[in-house]
């Protein structure tokens, strides 16, 4: 079994969200921020989620304030922002750090599995994405510039597996 399913980050209320419940699903993990130029990607993410959630797609948003301090709010404020402005229904987790000494184990795992541009492991900015297949293996890593809609092909491919 993939180590991915052993992870259990905190949800927005601080309760453990065990990844074991995601076994057999296709998961898209995104580090999100409310005040970023890429924030409108929430809309496309929600559209993807609505379109494929019944087929087994799960999207998880991990708020992070490390890039340009663009996620300064509390977990509650962040969740409210996502719902009110983009109608987000997929889970938004507790705010975490994705780089540095206090990196969340989820990102430690994801980064160890797939490097970014130039082979760097570090997350470069908000809205980088990791796509995980039904077996808990990291399938691909996408930069902030990659729009969620353009990942749809990969998602569909994994959903069919």
């Amino acid at each position, binding site marked *: 079994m993939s180590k991915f399913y052993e992870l259990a980050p905190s949800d927005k209320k601080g309760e453990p969200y065990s990844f074991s419940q995601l076994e057999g699903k296709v998961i898209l993990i995104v580090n999100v921020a409310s005040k970023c130029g890429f924030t409108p990607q929430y809309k496309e993410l929600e559209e993807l989620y609505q379109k494929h959630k019944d087929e087994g797609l799960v999207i998880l948003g991990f708020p992070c304030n*490390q890039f340009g301090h663009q996620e300064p709010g509390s977990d509650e404020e962040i969740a409210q922002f996502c719902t009110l402005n983009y109608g987000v229904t997929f889970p938004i987790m507790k705010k975490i750090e994705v780089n540095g000494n206090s990196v969340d184990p989820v990102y430690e795992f994801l980064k160890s599995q797939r490097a970014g541009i*130039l082979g760097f492991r*570090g997350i470069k900015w908000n809205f980088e994405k990791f796509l995980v297949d039904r077996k808990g293996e990291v399938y691909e890593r996408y930069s902030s510039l990659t729009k969620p809609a353009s990942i749809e092909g990969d998602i569909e491919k994994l959903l069919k597996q």
Partner: protein
Amino acid sequence: MMENIEVICEQLVTSFNQEHDDPLAIVIDIDMYAEEVNEYGSILDKEVYLKELLKQLQEHHDIVGKIGWDLPEVLLKFYVPKNIDVRKSLHSSDIIITVMKCFNEIALAGNPKECLLTGCELLSKLSILEFKKIEDKAKGTNNDDKGGSNDTTSRENLVTVTEDGEYLFHRTQTDFFFGLYLHVIFELIVTTLRRISTLYPSKYLGMATAAIMKCVRNNIDYMDDCNLILRRIYTFCRGYLPAEIPRDLLESEKISNDDLKRISEKELDTQGKLLQVFSTFGIDICLRNFNTKIDVKFFYDLARKAMVISQYENNVYELISRYYQLAQAFDINLEDELLKFIKDSRKIYSSLPKDSEITSDEARVLISQAVYKLSYTYSLQKITKQTKFTLDQQGIFILSGFHYFETCKHLLPELDIKDAIYMYLRVTTPTLYADVYRNNSSENIARYWLWVSIINSSIEKARSNLKELPSYVFSVFFEVLLTRNLAEHNEETRLSSFTLLTRLLCLAPEDVAFDVIMQVLEEKRNLPAKSCVLGIMKDLTTRTRQCFDDFEKEECSIANKMKEMNIEDKSTTSLMRPYLVLDDHKMNAIHKISLNYIVNFNLSEYNESALLLMLNFIKFFNAVNEQWDNKLLIEVQEKIDAKFNEKRNYNDKGEVKLILEANKKLGDYLK
């Protein structure tokens, strides 16, 4: 007289249409017409000419492919004060916009390798001083013509005060044009880099970064606003995308896929390292004249006070924060790098002999002089032996301190005070031999780490660690810190560093602390330094601390017993003792120096610093009078009285009045 602009444009079009086979002729035509229009034409003529040139470039990409690299220099000649009003927005000038669009066409359709080379050459020779000369010359002309009254680009006119009372500094003409040049050249470089089809992109990335480094080194000391270049380098690093393996090579049978993969992976690694080095270089060089005030922030945080940050500083902090994030994205482990920096710094100084191994005063002087030079020699050796990519050490060091600003936590919570001192010496002393090593920000961070080392460890531990440091190393360190602080312009930094100096002397072994103070007082050196150490000595002799070791405790206990027996020793009572206990030896030494100063004080040649030092001597004696030998105090008091009462006419000076008042207070005590 200039030819009609419509005729010039027609000729330009003809040139593009008819001289397809002779690109050089087209370049000469463009150059010739541009020169004429720029020299004699109106603003409107220039706009018309540039728009026509843009149109031709857009319509003849094949020609741009041949001549593109030759055009940037011609186009940049339009970016001059006579064509552009720096007070207006960039978008309001068609000249600015059209030249930018021409650059874009060149970047997209020109030969990428040649255009990159042009961009690098332009950047290497870009000099802000040239823009300053133009600005100064224009001011001179304005002054001649209009008495300077309409000079809207002078520095004074570029400052406004907001309703909140904050000063806003607008761009100067020099910064404006330098920034504009930087923008178009950087864009040219970035775009052409992306277009170069090669299996070895690191070669071109290296070329571009080398040109940028040269440009920054040449100009940073003359720039008012380091944001200009700090932002450019950040954007360059963050936005860099590695070139993919050229398709023709993928399809070629001359090279195997395995070889291609191997070369490509090696190239990715090299490009990554280049960007790591370049981004840390950026933070180092761009902040060389900037006071990051991280030490002040820590000092204020200790005092639970908020540090006032100007808009300009805030903008710089925002950018440093981006670099900090970039370092993490580029897999730079700041903690590991700082540990390496500490280890290196320790290596520089750890081989120095212990105090007990130095046999004569001459040897001590020589070894002290060597301490000043060690870091500089080490840097030179490191450069000559360098064969691998290494991160910019000063850049890493700055980011290690900025970690506190970013996270409110120390990257290394526990730091040996000796290591903090070694790091301070390493960062500051090379400046004495080569200005290229001067970096205000690094110095700032070095002071921050000194603070961390003394605040985050127990007093016993800090004192015991300091005991292990050779006294002459401490002496050099104290000397450098004191001298640098006296030259510091920023009041907050001066105050926090003065407190730091005092705290360090409180922790140093008593004899070492006294020796460094005496060294400053005895040497023929600047008077403010002497005033400064007198202030520190006053604190050390009047403030008390708990006794630490057995010897001190026993000493205090004896003093207490003597007190019980009514045989009181003024210097030591209870288990508290001053940081610096005044015994006969110390009293005599200080008395001799003060008396010497008073006797030789020449009233006819005095200056403010000299008077302040006199005042500080009396204040010191007033503060310690109860611990002092009254006979010595009487001598001092009488000499000062005699000296200053000789010429009462000096009473009009504030300092003299204060000296007389302070001396009277001393006299009253003695009565």
